[in-house]
């Protein structure tokens, strides 16, 4: 490398007058700045950075796939242009310590100057922002590492402490480097803190505040670390993720979410209703002796227990007026606090639903944010993001390799077929098959619903006959189990039928197959549940002879839950254990059964829906569900480890998790909330049992309470009037829905606007790329010209 080449650029004269403001269209200004840049770069050649050139070009080329087209464009890249290419900020990311430090220094400066950013209209007139990056890089005066470090520390000091420590954490520097920076930061911040301590003793108030603040923060950090350490099942989840990957792991994470939701509901009901009723039990009723059958039927010994609605009293506990005779004035001298149990019952159920709603909506919005992505770029994403680093077992790794290979081949075939679309005949045939399959599926669902309907009527007749005949207790209670048995049987067998249909249908993409299977299963379960809900509320067939119909409904729901759990266990036993034994011993294949995530998750959602439907009629149902989920976790995990293999179908874990939690929120929770609202607003509670006996609707207890409040304390009539006009007026609901729709529309428009901005920016990027190529060519030709001249 000898003297730097002298570069002169022949620039055509601009046609604009000199009086105008400079704009990006003014090529002269741009060329001048680049002229300076090229001079600076060529001065670096003399500084002897050849060694770095070799290292950088090796790394830079390693990141790129040498295309044949590229060679034609740069047939003989001179070392100088290669060096310039290699020194570009986009190529030096993460390679050079100095480059990283200067880049983050600029980023911090920009963060600080964010308030002084020019408004959007002026953005087109500013020079290209990429030029600013060159300042620190190529300025020879700031070449030393120490000075760059000092500059970065100075920039970090100007940010607030939390932001600067976050910035430090997210920098791609080595840990040793970060520790040096942090030491410098704390060293420079330390004197300021000492300065603060100087004035502290003069104001004891401020000093105690600082102490309290520091103490609280320390406690908070300790609590957070304890929370992370106390994560249940951390090792179990690691094991599962390590062997089976993210898809099967999502099932267990979903189970954990459900457990948490049930815990909150259970805790609220326990604290405000169950414990108090247990401490002040109602007048004792003779209970039949405990036999084992109660655990299955929920009747018998359990009928008059805390488990069901009928046990709860409609009294106000500790009421000071209860002991005085009617007509006299109620003594209000220091009574113990009265506790209105029916009101507590109603409000606890309402609050637990509200808490569940908030948690679900938060979960849905969080997964939506994480999983929204376009389908363009499928192949690139599959190559770079498909490998699950959590998988550590040899066989699972091998399976994952095969998976990805198959998926890449499928995507290639799909791309090829997209360019060669199907003929009309094939399309038509495919449509006909699809219509037939859907017709069959919907027909079978209606058949199932009708079967359940007729079974209900038949069981009702059998029950009436039995009551007339007065047969034994065992027989009577065993009859109760027939309906849950049949429904669970249908829920277990129909998915296999739908799988057969799907195999016949032969969908193009496996992802669509999964969606279609989920939709069909969902329709079946929803229809059956809707029929049952209608029967429970209308009391035409189920619980028509019972006096305490709420307890009857609660018992029915308990039976459904227990039967659902039993069938899940049987399905695990037969579908996984016995199937594996058959495959191994009889068919002598190495294949093992697969864990069907979608079906299992739908079963979990179904069980949770039953719990939510039954909360009003059996307040301890969340506890039963929690127990069920705990047992399910360990049983499923054991069966998985022993009997199953990793899934072979492609799986988009985060999109599926979003779908599951959305399904939990919308059909499941919303349906249960609608059922509950209808029960509270319109259905008459039974006369002889429960906390709402004698009222017209359950909601009336709330109304009566507001009236009592109004009468007792005239100053809070505003509360009563607010209650009357807001909650009972339907126009409020209308206004709220209009507001919600407006918010949704606004968000949609914002998203559309952002997509348009993204398109514009992509065009701008493409233009920048073309500019870069043009400039490199010009640089190359100039270098060759000067080389020829010398």
């Amino acid at each position: 490398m000898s003297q730097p080449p002298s570069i002169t650029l022949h620039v055509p004269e601009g046609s604009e007058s000199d009086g105008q403001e400079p704009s990006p269209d003014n090529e002269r200004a741009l060329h001048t700045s680049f002229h300076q840049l090229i001079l600076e770069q060529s001065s670096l050649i003399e500084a002897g950075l050849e060694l770095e050139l070799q290292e950088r070009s090796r790394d830079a080329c390693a990141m790129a796939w040498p295309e044949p087209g590229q060679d034609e464009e740069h047939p003989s890249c001179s070392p100088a242009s290669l060096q310039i290419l290699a020194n570009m900020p986009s190529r030096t990311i993460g390679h050079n310590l100095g480059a990283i430090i200067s880049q983050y220094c600029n980023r911090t400066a920009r963060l600080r100057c964010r308030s002084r950013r020019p408004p959007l209209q002026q953005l087109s007139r500013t020079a290209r922002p990429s030029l600013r990056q060159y300042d620190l890089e190529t300025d020879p005066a700031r070449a030393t590492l120490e000075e760059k470090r000092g500059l970065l520390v100075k920039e970090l000091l100007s940010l607030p402490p939390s932001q600067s420590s976050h910035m430090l954490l997210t920098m791609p520097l080595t840990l040793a480097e970060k520790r040096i920076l942090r030491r410098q930061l704390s060293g420079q911040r330390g004197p300021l803190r000492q300065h603060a301590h100087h004035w502290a003793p003069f104001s004891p108030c401020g000093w105690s505040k600082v102490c309290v603040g520091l103490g609280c923060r320390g406690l908070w950090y300790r609590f957070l670390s304890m929370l992370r350490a106390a994560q249940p099942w951390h090792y179990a989840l690691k094991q599962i993720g390590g062997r089976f990957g993210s898809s099967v792991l999502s099932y267990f994470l979903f189970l954990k979410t459900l457990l948490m939701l049930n815990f909150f509901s259970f805790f609220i009901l326990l604290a405000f209703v169950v414990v108090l009723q247990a401490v002040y039990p109602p007048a004792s009723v003779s209970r039949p002796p405990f036999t084992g059958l109660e655990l299955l039927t929920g009747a018998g010994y359990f009928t008059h227990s805390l488990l069901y609605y009928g046990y709860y009293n409609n009294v106000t506990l500790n009421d000071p007026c209860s002991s005085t005779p009617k007509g006299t004035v109620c003594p209000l001298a220091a009574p113990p606090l009265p506790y209105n149990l029916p009101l507590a019952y109603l409000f606890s159920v309402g609050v637990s639903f509200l808490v569940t709603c908030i948690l679900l909506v938060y979960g849905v919005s969080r997964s939506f944010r994480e999983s929204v992505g376009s389908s363009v770029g499928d192949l690139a994403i599959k190559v770079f993001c498909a490998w699950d680093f959590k998988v550590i077992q040899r066989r699972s790794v091998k399976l994952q390799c095969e998976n990805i290979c198959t998926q890449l081949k499928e995507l290639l075939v799909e791309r090829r077929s997209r360019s060669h679309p199907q003929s009309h005949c094939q399309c038509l045939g495919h449509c006909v098959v699809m219509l037939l399959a859907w017709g069959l599926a919907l027909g079978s669902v209606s058949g199932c619903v009708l079967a359940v309907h007729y079974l209900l009527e038949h069981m009702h007749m059998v029950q009436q006959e039995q009551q007339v005949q007065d047969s034994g207790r065992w027989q009577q209670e065993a009859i109760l189990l027939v309906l849950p048995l049949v429904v669970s049987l249908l829920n277990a067998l129909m998915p296999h039928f739908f799988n057969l249909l799907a195999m016949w249908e032969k969908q193009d993409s496996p992802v669509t197959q999964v969606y279609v299977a989920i939709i069909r299963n969902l329709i079946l379960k929803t229809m059956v549940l809707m029929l049952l809900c209608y029967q429970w509320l209308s009391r035409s067939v189920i619980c028509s002879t019972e006096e305490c119909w709420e307890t009857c409904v609660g018992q029915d729901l308990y039976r459904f839950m227990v039967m659902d759990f039993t069938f899940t266990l049987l399905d695990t036993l037969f579908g996984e254990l016995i199937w594996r034994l058959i495959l191994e011993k009889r068919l002598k294949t190495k294949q093992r059964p697969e864990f069907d995530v979608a079906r299992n998750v739908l079963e979990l959602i179904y069980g949770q829906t039953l719990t939510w439907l039954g909360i009003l009629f059996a307040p301890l149902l969340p506890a039963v569900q929690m127990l069920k989920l705990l047992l399910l976790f360990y049983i499923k995990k054991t069966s998985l480890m022993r009997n199953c293999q990793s899934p072979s179908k492609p799986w988009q874990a985060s999109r599926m998790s979003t779908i599951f939690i959305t399904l939990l929120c919308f059909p499941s929770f919303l349906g249960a909330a609608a059922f509950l609202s209808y029960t509270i607003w319109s259905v008459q509670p039974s006369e002889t049992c429960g906390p709402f006996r004698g009222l017209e609707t359950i909601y009336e207890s709330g109304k009566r309470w507001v009236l009592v409040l109004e009468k007792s304390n005239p100053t809070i009539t505003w509360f009563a009037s607010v209650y009357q006009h807001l909650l009972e007026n339907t126009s409020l609901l209308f206004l709220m829905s209009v507001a919600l729709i407006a918010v949704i529309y606004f968000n949609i428009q914002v998203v559309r606007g952002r997509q348009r901005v993204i398109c514009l920016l992509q065009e701008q990027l493409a233009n920048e790329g073309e500019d870069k190529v043009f400039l490199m060519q010009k640089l190359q030709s100039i270098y060759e010209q000067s080389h020829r001249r010398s």
Partner: protein
Amino acid sequence: MMKFIQSSGQVGTFRTAQVLSPKGPLQDCTFFTRKEILRLHGRYHEMAPNVVPMDYTKDPDVKLPMQLIINMPELKENPFKERIVESFSEDGEGSLSFNDFVDMFSVLSEMAPRELKAIYAFKIYDLEKTLNKLTREELTAEEITLVCEKVIEEADMDGDGKLGFADFENMISKAPDFLSTFHIRI
């Protein structure tokens, strides 16, 4: 004093202060808590108990070679293990000091932000070699060429025929699974 239990079942004890050296507390520079860093020290120590000291107050210059690190159960079957360890080693050869070791698992933990993971993923991945490692060389050469072409076609934003860091980061931002797949639990 704090006890930690090695995976072999032995119980070791060392002072918590020994892990913190005068250069500054370790846990503020990573995404781990103090307890997790101590646990990592236990794992690092058990790989070479004769070489790795218990006492880190003097900040000893101890590096473990790549062969030991890639035999860890979390990395043993990973086809990218050499590239991962190389990207985090200071000397580029693959030997990790304790700082580099903690750094590696900190970036690969679930608390690290997407941008940081994208930077290191860009260092680790090389297009052609990645494809070979992912598919255990079961794709034919023609298929590999086709896939590479399509990937660059999809992801290249500025049209220079190469995947720069900006293109890579843009593609990663569209992949919702990246945060959960580029994650090793330790």
